């Protein structure tokens, strides 16, 4: 953008911009404002016009022609830049081998007819269809129609070429450079390798699916119109139903009843286990021992020292003393108490 007396002028767009203009005070009336804008605009247009009229011009019948410079204001594109087309298989091969295209004449001298004929297309030179007689050779197999064979071979060549064309288009599509008028449309799923045979649904499975479908409405299929001869749904899934939580008469009390039933069932089945005798006994023992320890904590230690000479373990002596009431628990936990004694005695000796 060139700056001409403080204006930015873009001749390519015939655009001018005055970045320093501002109203000192915005005029109150509309006419005044418009007049001011126009007078300022006139100056700007004058700047562009002087730029345009000073460009070298050529005379034309309709008026002087001026070559405009390209626009300098950068504006975004409409569409992305076209991508370069990848070379086809033939182009790659030709490049590797250094094969170059030669221009060929459109018409060729045909010796058979002695006329000029097209190289390709209708009424072309060396057309197979023009040959009415094919000479038999020694190598010919009997029973093979040479004309049909020729047509079939041609068809094969065309098909091969079409396949190659498609491959080239596919690579072009991958690079995003497919010609604008070509579309690649999927006709069917590609058949590759062996395919597993289609699984057949059993009658049961179909029934299940039909049942699921018929109940897949908000009402669980309750209000749906039944078809004539439609059988009731098999294997209908469970619907969870919740009873009202708020207590009341009728259905309201059902919730309470339900929980009561569950609770009573639990209690009745486990009634014999409610009092765990073993656990109760051990708890009783432990509690009692703790109480005793609190009572005789200090005196017991002095007694231990005294009875060191005796063979019986000194620590257990105080335990033995108030055993009168303990006859019953001793029976239950005899083994435990004995073990304890043994372990303690060893320590004492060491």
């Amino acid at each position, binding site marked *: 953008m060139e700056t001409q007396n403080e204006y930015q002028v873009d001749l390519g767009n015939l655009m001018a911009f005055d970045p320093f203009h501002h109203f000192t005070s915005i005029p109150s009336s509309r006419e005044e404002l418009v007049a001011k804008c126009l007078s300022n605009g006139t100056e700007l247009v004058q700047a*562009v016009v002087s730029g345009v009229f000073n460009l070298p011009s050529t005379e034309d019948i309709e008026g002087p022609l001026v070559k405009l410079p390209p626009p300098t204001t950068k504006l975004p594109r409409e569409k992305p830049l076209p991508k370069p087309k990848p070379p086809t298989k033939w182009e790659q091969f030709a490049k590797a081998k250094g094969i170059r295209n030669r221009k060929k004449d459109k018409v060729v001298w045909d010796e058979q007819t002695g006329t000029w004929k097209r190289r390709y297309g209708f009424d072309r030179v060396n057309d197979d269809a023009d040959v009415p007689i094919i000479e038999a050779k020694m190598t010919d197999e009997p029973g093979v129609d040479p004309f049909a064979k020729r047509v079939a071979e041609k068809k094969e060549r065309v098909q091969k070429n079409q396949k190659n064309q498609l491959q080239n288009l596919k690579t072009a599509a991958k690079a995003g450079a497919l010609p604008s008028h070509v579309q690649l449309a999927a006709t069917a799923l590609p058949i590759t390798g062996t395919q597993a045979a289609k699984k057949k649904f059993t009658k049961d499975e179909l029934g299940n699916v039909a049942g699921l479908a018929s109940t897949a409405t908000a009402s669980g299929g309750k209000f749906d119109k039944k078809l004539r001869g439609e059988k009731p749904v098999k294997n209908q899934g469970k619907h969870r139903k919740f009873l009202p939580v708020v207590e009341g008469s009728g259905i309201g009390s059902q919730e309470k009843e339900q929980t009561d039933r569950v609770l009573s069932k639990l209690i009745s089945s486990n009634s014999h286990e409610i009092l765990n005798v073993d656990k109760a006994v051990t708890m009783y023992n432990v509690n009692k021992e703790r109480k005793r320890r609190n009572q005789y904590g200090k005196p017991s230690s002095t007694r231990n020292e005294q009875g060191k000479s005796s063979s019986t373990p000194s620590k257990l002596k105080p335990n033995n003393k108030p055993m009168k009431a303990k006859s019953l628990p001793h029976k239950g936990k005899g083994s435990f108490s004995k073990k304890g004694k043994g372990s303690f005695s060893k320590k004492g000796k060491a």
Partner: protein
Amino acid sequence: MLKVKTPKCGRVKRELEKRAPKLVETGKKTLILQGTKTSNVLNTVLSEIYHLKRDNAIRYTRKNDSIRPFESGGETSLEFFSMKTDCSIFVYGSTSKKRPDNLVIGRTYDHHIYDLIEVGVENFKRMNSFTYDKKLAPQAGSKPFIVFSGEAFESVDELKHLKEVLLELLRGEVVDNLNLAGLGRVYVCTAISSNRVFLTHCAMRLKKSGTIVPRIELVEIGPSMDFVVRRHRLPNESLKKEAMKTAKDKLHKKIKNVSKDALQGKLGKIYVPDQKIGEMALPNKAKGVKRERREAKMKNSNDERSSKKQKEDS
């Protein structure tokens, strides 16, 4: 399997080729459409914009209820229309209590919304309300001048954006050759405040000034209106960078041995090859270097040599 689908007739093929991305783009088409509710003013605004851009615009006159350019999901049908009509500028008018006489001007890149700016139309004066000499009336499709003035166009973000969009909307066709006799109209855009722009369309009267450059006088021919900027959405940076690519950038080749300096201007390096003095042509040939004499000398020396040889043999 894939099948190659090509158009059945040449007309379709040509149309498709017109729409394909090009290295150098020819110009953007404008789509003018409206929402469910429009005011009388807005209808006139839209039809007059269409009238001014008649050569390069498409006008949709049906109500569109699913277009809300600023909302996500509301641009789907707009992008579809852009694809269908191959337009990449759109002007969408709608009116509501919150935003009366609303005009959304936007651009698309690759048929996806690129940027948007929303303006309210105020103080609208239609073309019919202006009286002027009909001789001045500009030709349809002539290239207009566009003039922006006001510092707000550079300092305020929204107006800077609006300037770019208006330039793109109004500038018309990009041409190489311009007929000076066909010049005749000007769009004048003036920033009145930080969010208000005055836009008017004028005819140009060329008067003799004594030099090649004529003196210009502007005559307002309408429409004229005020744009009050409301919402705007700028393109995101990566999209902008991609959209700004030009064919020239790509073809730019590094020129060897030429550098540019701000002070000294364009600088070139020259490499002088070795001077091969022995092969140099002499300006005036002295007698001794003349060709005949040189050859004669050579001949003589050869004879001597042969005679000597003969002597040795014998």
